[in-house]
């Protein structure tokens, strides 16, 4: 993304044209009531944030909860969550149906919260998403702890809350957990004593490797392929009380309401001493079920619909641009910073990737958001 130096001018010129164009494209009768399509102004390489925020805004369960938070928490001290809630509220209560908005307060807060984002460099959209989700969750937990402390001062806060996608066992899940959290169960079979041990861990998203000319379904299956732990990576078997060779596989035990899939498109290449973008063509269907569920999975038949995709455009992690495509009321929209366009569902195939490595630059799906169908109806 070239930093928009002539942002102000450019933006005003564009706004008038695209705003009316989008309304025309959708049609006044078709325009969903109470829905607003607002682009987000770029403050110099903040497209990584804009694209993720738009995707999250169109994950309805998430948006609803954020707006609910806004309604419940009238005057609290400013956090990243209150900034996000204000931003979502501001979009949701616009008089106009289309336009653009400057997420100034949110970006300012973000730069205060995390040093890594306090600059004008391009950031990784997935790192941002990861940070945002975890951070919001921490805020909710902290606020909850505070209120419980106020209520009952007799018992101390008890367990310390470390939140790296995990819930302390005896703590109520937050709405962030309820929306994004799934459970992976990793089964390890010691090749010496044949004992199978399994361990559950929670996740907010699944990070999958990408192969050329495959589907996201296949990438997810590979994610759950059996892996042999050997050499330097042996498994400490409790039964044998020693390091042993073992086989391990990870399968999904609890399927989240919104399944976020991160395609690992930035690979570190030793020969170049930097990260290289992998533009492989990975198709993703509009509808998804998981094959890699565990035998004791709670809801293995869960049917997902694709609701948003964060797309990386360009040749590498530190250059390029992020945009997002989202589904809203049955049609697809493309958010490119302050610009919003209606696109045909068939245009999604432009973001699968490239079948050859000749071209340097590509526009490829980077984070996929699948929403469980039972969540929407």
């Amino acid at each position: 993304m070239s930093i928009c130096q002539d942002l102000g001018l450019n933006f005003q010129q564009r706004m008038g044209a695209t705003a009316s164009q989008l309304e025309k494209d959708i049609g006044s009768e078709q325009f969903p009531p109470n829905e607003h399509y607002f682009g987000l102004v770029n403050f110099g390489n903040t497209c990584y944030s804009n694209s993720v925020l738009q995707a999250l805004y169109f994950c309805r369960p998430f948006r609803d909860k954020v707006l609910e938070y806004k309604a419940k928490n009238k005057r609290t001290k400013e956090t990243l969550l209150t900034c996000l809630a204000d931003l979502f509220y501001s979009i949701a209560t616009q008089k106009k149906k289309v336009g653009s908005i400057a997420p100034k307060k949110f970006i300012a807060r973000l730069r205060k919260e995390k040093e890594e984002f306090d600059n004008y460099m391009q950031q990784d959209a997935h790192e941002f998403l990861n940070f945002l989700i975890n951070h919001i969750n921490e805020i909710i937990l902290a606020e909850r702890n505070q209120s419980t402390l106020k209520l009952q001062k007799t018992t101390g806060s008890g367990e310390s809350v470390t939140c790296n996608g995990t819930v302390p066992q005896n703590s109520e899940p937050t709405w962030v957990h309820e929306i994004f959290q799934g459970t992976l169960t990793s089964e390890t079979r010691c090749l010496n004593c044949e004992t199978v041990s399994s361990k559950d861990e929670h996740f907010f998203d699944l990070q999958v490797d990408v192969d050329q000319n495959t589907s996201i379904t296949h990438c997810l299956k590979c994610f759950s392929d059996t892996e042999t732990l050997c050499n330097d990576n042996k498994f400490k078997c409790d039964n044998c009380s020693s390091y042993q060779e073992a086989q391990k596989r990870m399968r999904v035990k609890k399927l989240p309401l919104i399944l976020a899939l991160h395609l690992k498109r930035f690979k570190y290449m030793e020969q170049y001493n930097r990260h290289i973008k992998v533009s492989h063509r990975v198709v993703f269907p509009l509808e998804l079920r998981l094959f890699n569920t565990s035998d004791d999975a709670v809801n293995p038949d869960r049917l997902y619909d694709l609701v948003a995709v964060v797309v990386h455009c360009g040749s590498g992690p530190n250059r390029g641009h992020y945009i997002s495509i989202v589904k809203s009321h049955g049609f697809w929209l493309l958010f490119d910073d302050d610009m919003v366009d209606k696109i045909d569902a068939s245009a999604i195939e432009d973001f699968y990737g490239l079948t050859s490595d000749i071209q340097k630059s590509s526009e490829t799906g980077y984070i996929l958001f699948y929403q469980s169908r039972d969540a929407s109806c």
Partner: protein
Amino acid sequence: MAVQSDSGGKDDVKTQFVTREGTYRLMTLSEYSRPNRVGYTSGSGSTHVRVSLVTLPPGAAPGSDGPTSEDRICFNHGKELYVYVYKGIKKAADLTKPVDKKMYKGTNPTCHDFNTVTMTPDSVSLVIGFSTGQIQLIDPIKKELSKLYNEERLIDKSRVTCIKWVPGSSNLFIAAHASGQLYVYNEELTCGTTAPQYQLFKHGDGYSIHTCRTKSTRNPLYRWIIGAESCINEFAFSPCGTNLAVVSQDGFLRCFHYDTMELVGRARSYFGGFLCVCWSPDGKYVVVGGEDDLVTVWSFSERRVVARGQGHRSWVSVVAFDPYIVSLGEPDTEDTREDKSESAQSYRLGSVSQDTQLCFWDLTEDVLKPAVRARASTHLSPNSNNICSNGIPSTKVLQKCPKNNKIGHKHAELGGNNAAGEPSAAKAAKSKTNNISTLNINVGKAKEEASGSLGVNFTQRLAALSFGERRSDHRRNFSLTKSTDKSSAANTVALRGKSAGAQTNDSCDPVKLIGTPSCPRFDECPVLEPLVCKKIAHERLTALLFRSEYFITACADGCVNTWSRPLRSAPGPTRRDRVDLTD
């Protein structure tokens, strides 16, 4: 080209592979493509390269300069369409001398089909669909003919996704569109100068059929609206021409009796759209491939998904039965299987995918036979019984429903028995065999009835198995005033009205369909593994056709390849030695 071995890099493109019948080889000199491929990138838009092949009737070839081939091949690539003399496994024709070559502006040809009824030694009708919705009819040999349909895009603006001549018809063809509509055209009629006004002709669960409201007959004769505006990806007539299977982006396979326009059965993908469809040579099974990376086998007589094939790493773009292996496979079954049932039959299925791989599958009796069904039904949730096996209420089917339900109950009982005395699998199997015999009889009876009511004799259908042969007595009545049709349509509507509240809405909801015969849970349905799975191209594969001497593949970069079959040992009872499935 060097022959790659499997032990080497896994991603090498194979130029030969071995199955139990022998070695298939890529005929590197038999490659067809545009004449000059240098500097040509596949460009914008989807690159669904399709292949049509026709064998012209042998005629007194005027210039008899050696044995020229009667085969003509047609393929599209980007904006271009080529027709060549096709020489099979022999060296390809001179690519600079196509029989016909078309280049289009502002639109891409997407699909095409030769008419095998009207063809002569020196003429053939080729119907072509385009990305912008138009349809063209040409004669690539005589070059006199050129007609356009939907020229002003008044009928449909969306991409033509599949076009085929109605089996046995000299002048009717069907075009499916991305809009989810399917039109029946008569090539002799015009399309009119105004947008067609439609009136409802018939409707059923998830589809409706319309005719034009005009005094003079015009195109389209019929408009079928299937599903809710979701792209129809492909359709295929059963080998006997009676049934039409349609697959759509909404993830449904819908099977219609073409003449009565009744929906006779349905299946749902595990997830995502169904992209391709084909019939087994005997019309007993419909196989579909789709965005769930699976190959799904649906039994026409039982109206249920009987198996799923898992092996592709991406979406399945074409499925095709190899009709020449069905007969080949049969002698083998005697000595290789313990089970020597007389109806023993196995099918060979091929599939190609966006993963650049070709898969062969053996659909064997142990997977397809009803015994599996009995086992599978033990897992069925109890409420699945009140949905009749095809899940669709309609007049025709309703008559048969009691019978079907009975079978369903039998299975349920069976399931119960098995479940009760389950722990030892061997015991269960023993107890099952007894029941199965009665079961088979029942199913057989139901089949007879079904075939009776559809006016098609199953044995006759089997007899007419040979590929490409069309039933000559196949006639269609397109008179719109046919009163019987109308009244039966009215009946259907009325009946539907009654049942609508109970079933219609649920029956299309994929969340509710899971666990039913149209979409069994993944662990409740046999999962097949491919016999072979080979990467045979650098680009995604888009076509697969089987012929007696070879098979043809095509991929998105516009290359059409021919693969020779294993050398056949002398025909007759001589049994070939079985080759292990290694390569």
